[in-house]
């Protein structure tokens, strides 16, 4: 078990280093100049001399040869320092970390709702004896995936904020401002969870062990929720990594539509302005989240499945 953990931790570090390096190559070595983006950001009609541009570039450490820049930046990144944002002048790490809590709040609530929506639809759809209801519930996930997040958000705002006036359309003040964005995020995410869970529930229901459990006298509910769900949960759990990506991508859209601060907004703004320190901080943070979630999922497997537990014990 210890070796398993060590190996997984080693892999995690490797992934983070790769994320840093690949983002460095893409952001710093490919053409495009963040300082020029800032200076050209407002059309001020001011003609800049080459010397003025060079001075500004030097201030952001963009004038060193690339191996020196790479070394300096990697060393600083190990201390959590990705440099200062070219657009705001704030530390990139600070910007991303202050934007993180509002994003996590929406993503967390969105994930809970997604599990309730998706899991509920999958369980009810496979459990019901009414064929029409099962068909209806199982057709929800494809529908959920095909709805554009942007559009869903605007429709929800139109109904609940502009027409009924029960929820705020903008900002991140108070729990009520979480509801609409979380529902918006939960729809596509819940659809994915529902799709995967429904499929593995059906697969499990067709397994021979279900007959054995039934033969021993277990009722339908006991079979469905006690045995089948437990086995069917593993593929759905694996989807968590993918779902986390979905939540992050969705946050870019929901934060724009609902005028919320968050990692999504910081990311879009940084990409538009070619604010490389911030973009790099976001990439490494995203990689970190994936690594942690996948590590957590891997550690959960043995708890759910005794076969995995035995394998891990022998590693």
């Amino acid at each position, binding site marked *: 078990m210890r070796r398993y953990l060590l190996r997984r931790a080693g892999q995690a570090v490797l992934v983070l280093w790769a994320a840093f390096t690949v983002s460095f190559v893409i952001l710093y070595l490919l053409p495009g100049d963040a300082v020029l983006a800032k200076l050209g950001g407002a059309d001020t009609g001011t003609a800049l001399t080459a010397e003025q541009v060079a001075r500004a570039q030097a201030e952001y450490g963009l004038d060193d040869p690339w191996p020196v820049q790479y070394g300096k930046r990697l060393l600083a990144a190990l201390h959590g320092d990705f440099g200062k944002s070219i657009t705001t002048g*704030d530390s990139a790490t600070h910007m991303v970390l202050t934007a993180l809590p509002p994003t996590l709040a929406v993503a967390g609530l969105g994930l809970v709702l997604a599990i309730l929506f998706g899991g509920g639809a999958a369980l009810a759809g496979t459990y019901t004896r009414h064929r029409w209801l099962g068909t209806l519930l199982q057709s929800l996930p494809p529908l959920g995936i095909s709805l554009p997040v942007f559009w869903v958000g605007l429709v929800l705002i139109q109904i609940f904020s502009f027409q009924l006036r029960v929820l705020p359309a903008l900002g991140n003040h108070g729990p009520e401002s979480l509801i609409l964005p979380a529902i918006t995020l939960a729809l596509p995410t819940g659809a994915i969870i529902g799709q995967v869970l429904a499929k593995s529930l059906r697969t499990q229901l067709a397994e021979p062990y279900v007959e054995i459990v039934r033969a021993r006298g277990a009722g339908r509910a006991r079979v469905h929720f006690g045995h089948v769900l437990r086995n069917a949960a593993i593929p759905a759990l694996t989807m968590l990594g993918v779902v986390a990506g979905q939540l992050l991508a969705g946050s870019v859209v929901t934060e*724009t539509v609902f005028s919320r601060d968050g990692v999504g907004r910081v990311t879009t703004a940084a990409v538009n302005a070619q604010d490389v320190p911030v973009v790099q901080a976001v990439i490494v943070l995203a990689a970190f989240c994936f690594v942690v979630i996948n590590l957590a999922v891997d550690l959960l497997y043995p708890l759910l499945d005794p076969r995995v537990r035995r394998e891990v014990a022998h590693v």
Partner: protein
Amino acid sequence: MSPSLPAKILPLAAAAALLASGCSSGATATDAGPPRPGGTLTIAVGSNPDCLDPQQTGTNAALNVGRQLVDSLTDQDPANGEIKPWLAERWESNADSTSFTFHLRPGATFADGTPVDAAAVKTSFDGVKALGAKALLGLGYLAAYRGATVVDPLTVRIDFTAPSAQFLQASSTMSLGILAPAAYGKTPEQRCQGDGLIGSGPFVFDSFKQNADIVITKRKGYAWGSSLWRHQGEAYLDRIDYKIVPEPGVRTGSLLSGQIGATTEVQPVDETQFQGNGFSEQTRPNPGIVFNLHANVTRGALTDDNVRQALVKGVNRQEVVDTVLSPNYKPATSILASTTPLHADLSAQLAYDPAGAARLLDAAGWVPGADGIRARNGQRLTAKVVYALVFNQSQSVLELIQQQLRRIGFDLVLEPHPNAEVLQIQQVNSYDLLWYNVTRADPDILRNNFSTKAGNRSRLLPGNPLDAVLDAQAATVDPAARKQPVTEAQRLIVANGYAIPVFELTQVVALGPDVHAVNFEASSRLQLFDTWTSGS
């Protein structure tokens, strides 16, 4: 064939909308005074300001906040461009506009209690100069800054190494707004976030949450307002809450449903929703260089004078405004917007004249080919326009111009780029046409972009007639003496097709029924000192 029904209705609708907007930009039915103090204005802005320090930033989003926090030495009358007293009671300049002496009013203080005196003004100007390329606008205004001298506690002299007539107008902008000496104890980055952003303005900085909101509150005891303002003493509003709302539909819906009091950046398609029904619109064209196709005369077909003049005639400006924008936007009548001091009306030269354009091209030997695009000696009549999507409607405007120019046999190729690339392309001179506008309430902005000693976006040769008039207008602050060279500069630019003016960028702010007197200063940025609310 008779015109189709929509073609008959459209001009009527446009006329009706014009009337409606004409009514709404003045006093409205709900504008029942007298103004009363108190209350909060919640106003939506479309983009995050990134940096709030007005000395460092050039975006509307930031300047609309910064204007309320800092005072300037002078103010500029939006009605006629005249420079009026503010922190300075009076001023004088020497004959060649290289030295300006300001006499400050006594009693003004910064929000930290320190006095607005000559030493503070000197610290502030030196501070702007030290920012270098970080002070996007100040860099141009203080290009020839030699230094400031404290003559006595309330008298300060600013010296330049070259004639800088534009400086008097620049002294009225928030970009040269005066910050407290303590502000320069903070780093420029800290000031960007509001830390140390201490001005002497009618409002003080309270908080800035990136991508969410900016809050400013009333300065108690404020008593040194600009001579142009409607009332003296403190501002009416207790608090202004700027909400950053990137999605235009959400800005519109939030205002209509009463969640905010006002919104900037109303999209042309949404404008009609705020006409009548208790809502109102305030609009003002931005002064400075209008949106234009700036020609590089050293490349391809644009080296031919006839081609550039044909382009001037081949753009139907009224159609651009009628179909892509709204009646609040004006077709360009010069390279300078109508709200710029010393603007010359050249609408006759800018009239849509496709036949005249065709004649010019025929005479120059450009022959229509099989696809309708002209050619001469195997060279196609084409040019690429480089642009960044800063203004939402730019893409649609350029697509329409593309169709209009096709009718005279010219192939306009659209080339969108991110901001950073546009500046790079400009620096290495690899463009045929540039699409941009610049906001500045002084005609000297022409020198920045057309003089061979400055931006020279047309890539003209030194010693040309345009250079001479641009230099002449820079040498005097006397509007009467500047009028002739400024008029001549506009005429030369249009007559030679150095740039093809298209339309005037316009600020459109929509107000809820309770919000009154949201004003624009001379550069069309928000001035909220006289703003008041009749809501609870």
